[in-house]
């Protein structure tokens, strides 16, 4: 233990050095695949042969492989092993784990709200003495740093991030790459003018199994954020603003009139269509729709992987509705926390926040780095989105994910009913207010 503590400053120095060396952008991003050779210095001081770190996350398949590729250099350098388990049910596992005390060393956390709960329960360990906070804060997008804090301490770090609220289009129909609509009204007028053979303005698909409705909640979140601003946005998910307030009602009206009303196949089709394939009509002939709203991770799903970024699809940021909030960005990401402060767990945590580590996943694709210095993006679109996260003046986290679980679920299923045309906006808002009265209390 004493040895580990003695080494901590050295480790921090290693981090700084590693950060400095990787700060100089490599001449040809994307060409160097596989673990970077410079991963060694930041981790090499620890000899943890034979030790292991248990990690639980939500990643499976390609994402799991990417994470394992990311930790491989650390395993090689320290001799320790990472035992990773992927599950979609992380909320249940951690909630019961905090109650019973059976927890992994490191885990992906469902969101900042749960992170604060686990921290308050004493289950989650503070990272203030684990990471070199000054370096971490200087390297990491400021919005992400504050999302990982509770009671003034850092409890969570972002392994990777994604940007929500991107508008995808097919440049083959009309190329918005260099003249993206700046405002919502521009988007509607330009969209109508350039619609051409496309059958509708929007592609919309909100089916997602037990989580059906979330793509619609993302829509509402974007409209609230850009119409009413981050303060209203944060009051709203915290339960301090009624659903039936003018700000939220306004967002619901924009969604129903300008989105569902102008969507391919209408609301019922949106409810019947999986979010995974919702964007595919961008690539049909004639196109089903002109625009598709989804987070950056969509490039790995549906028909997108079979298409070429830049020529077959491209994206622009969500246009401004109220100019005061033009620079607001909704991000999401995989928040990571530590439940057991073993030397190996601490060492892995220090490694994961480095640019070297995060660049491994960035190069594989489908992830944006939380570390400003990790910028080996495979294409220009990812690179632009990466800088959106790094430079966002106002960064907020997914609102529905931060609501109490019962509120979140009611929001999802109400959006399904509303989009399907089964209920009116009035009914939706009064239902949600009724759920809020119950959900925020407990």
């Amino acid at each position, binding site marked *: 233990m004493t040895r580990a503590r003695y080494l901590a400053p050295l480790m921090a120095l290693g981090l700084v050095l590693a950060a400095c060396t990787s700060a100089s952008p490599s001449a040809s991003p994307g060409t160097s695949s596989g673990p970077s050779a410079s991963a060694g210095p930041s981790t090499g001081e620890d000899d943890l042969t034979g030790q292991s770190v248990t990690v639980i996350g939500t990643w499976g398949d390609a994402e799991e492989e990417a994470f394992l590729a990311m930790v491989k250099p650390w395993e090689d350098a320290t001799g320790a092993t990472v035992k990773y388990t992927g599950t979609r*049910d992380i909320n249940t596992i951690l*909630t019961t784990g905090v109650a019973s005390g059976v927890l992994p060393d490191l885990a992906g956390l469902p969101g900042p709200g749960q992170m604060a709960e686990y921290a308050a329960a004493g289950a989650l360990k503070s990272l203030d003495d684990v990471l070199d906070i000054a370096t971490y804060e200087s390297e990491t997008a400021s919005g992400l740093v504050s999302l990982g804090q509770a009671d003034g301490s850092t409890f969570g770090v972002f392994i990777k991030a994604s940007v929500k609220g991107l508008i995808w289009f097919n440049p083959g129909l009309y190329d918005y790459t260099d003249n993206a609509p700046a405002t919502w009204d521009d988007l509607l007028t330009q969209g109508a003018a350039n619609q051409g053979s496309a059958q509708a303005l929007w592609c919309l698909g909100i089916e997602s199994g037990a989580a059906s409705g979330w793509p619609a909640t993302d829509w509402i979140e974007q409209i609230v954020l850009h119409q009413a601003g981050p303060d209203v946005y944060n009051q709203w998910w915290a339960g301090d603003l009624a659903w039936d307030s003018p700000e939220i009602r306004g967002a619901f009206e924009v969604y129903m009139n300008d989105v569902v009303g102008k969507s391919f196949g209408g609301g019922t089709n949106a*409810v*019947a269509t999986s979010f995974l394939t919702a964007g595919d009509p961008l690539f049909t002939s004639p196109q089903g729709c002109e625009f598709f709203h989804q987070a950056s991770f969509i490039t790995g799903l549906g028909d997108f992987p079979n298409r070429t970024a830049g020529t077959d699809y491209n994206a622009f940021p969500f246009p401004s509705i109220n100019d005061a909030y033009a620079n607001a960005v909704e991000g999401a990401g995989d928040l990571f926390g530590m439940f057991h402060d073993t030397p190996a767990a601490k060492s892995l945590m220090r490694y994961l926040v480095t640019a070297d580590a995060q660049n491994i996943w960035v190069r594989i694709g489908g992830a944006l780095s939380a570390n400003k210095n990790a910028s080996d993006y495979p294409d220009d679109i990812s690179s632009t989105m990466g800088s959106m996260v790094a430079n966002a003046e106002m960064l907020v986290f997914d609102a529905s994910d931060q609501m*109490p*679980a*019962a509120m979140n*679920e009611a929001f999802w299923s109400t959006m399904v*009913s509303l989009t399907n045309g089964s209920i009116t906006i009035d009914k939706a808002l009064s239902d949600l207010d009724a759920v809020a009265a119950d959900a925020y209390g*407990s």
Partner: protein
Amino acid sequence: MDDRLITAIVVVVGVPGVLVGYIWGTEQVLRLFGGRMQPRIRPWLWLLPALGFLGVFLVYPTIGTIIRSLQDKAGTEFVGLANYAWFFSNDNALSALKNNVLWVVFLTVFTVGIGLLISVLVDRVRYESVAKSVIFVPLAVSMVAAGVIWKFMYEYRPPGEPQIGTLNAALGAVGTGPVAFLQAQDFSMNTFALIAVMTWMWTGFAMVIISAALKSINPELLEAARMDGANEWQVFRGIIFPLLVPTLAVVSTTIVITALKAFDVVYTMTSGNLETDVIANLMIKQMFSFGDFGRASAIAVVLLLAIVPIMLFNIRQFRSQEAVR
């Protein structure tokens, strides 16, 4: 050697070993008693492990659930009947309750009715076993897989687009527009679409049991009726049906319990959205999504209370049948 291999060997050798050891042990204990007491004690000793398991895994959790249903979300305070009051005043819960009633009534009527019809009809044809096998096969499909299969069957695309769902493709072929089976709420159409899936699965079960009962009817009875000039409908109405009633009752109660427990199909196909929710899905949500064990327990108790009378009826029916034999 691989740990798993060792575990496998321990289980394969150990479990029968323990069982044989238990029987041997009870005989050793029985030797302590007089010869006259032995026959009275032996059954209880043999039942003891089963009773122990029932106690630990059924009775204890049931009592625990009832107690928990009177507590708050965190399980720290008693809140009386507040969780039950919530259940019977919440819109979603009442809608789920209404849907369960639809499930109980229509799943039972459809499966038993169609099962009876098929078993009576195929009783007279040469290819009976083939026809019965085809209808029985869906029961072997897991409910989640059935849900996924039928999601494809019901798949909806907007009018004018190529319909990839089997049913909507068929509707298109006869010139009708597509129907959003799982999204349409008029007359609870989406709930009936889900009930149809379970009917597809469980008709085979009803058919097999009813068919077996049909075979056990004495052919001389039917022959005598026909000799006396009864037509086929009168034979069915006056002889076959009354003799099948006890069997129909047992099949119906089984299906009713299945309908009350309906979860998998709803979860995989609509996840309870658009007013298709059922009590079991509501319970899962309260427990695992919202962490409200108090309300989840209250729902479990309501479900238990609904099932108990049916179970009692089933047992009584079973006993009276045994008595006849």
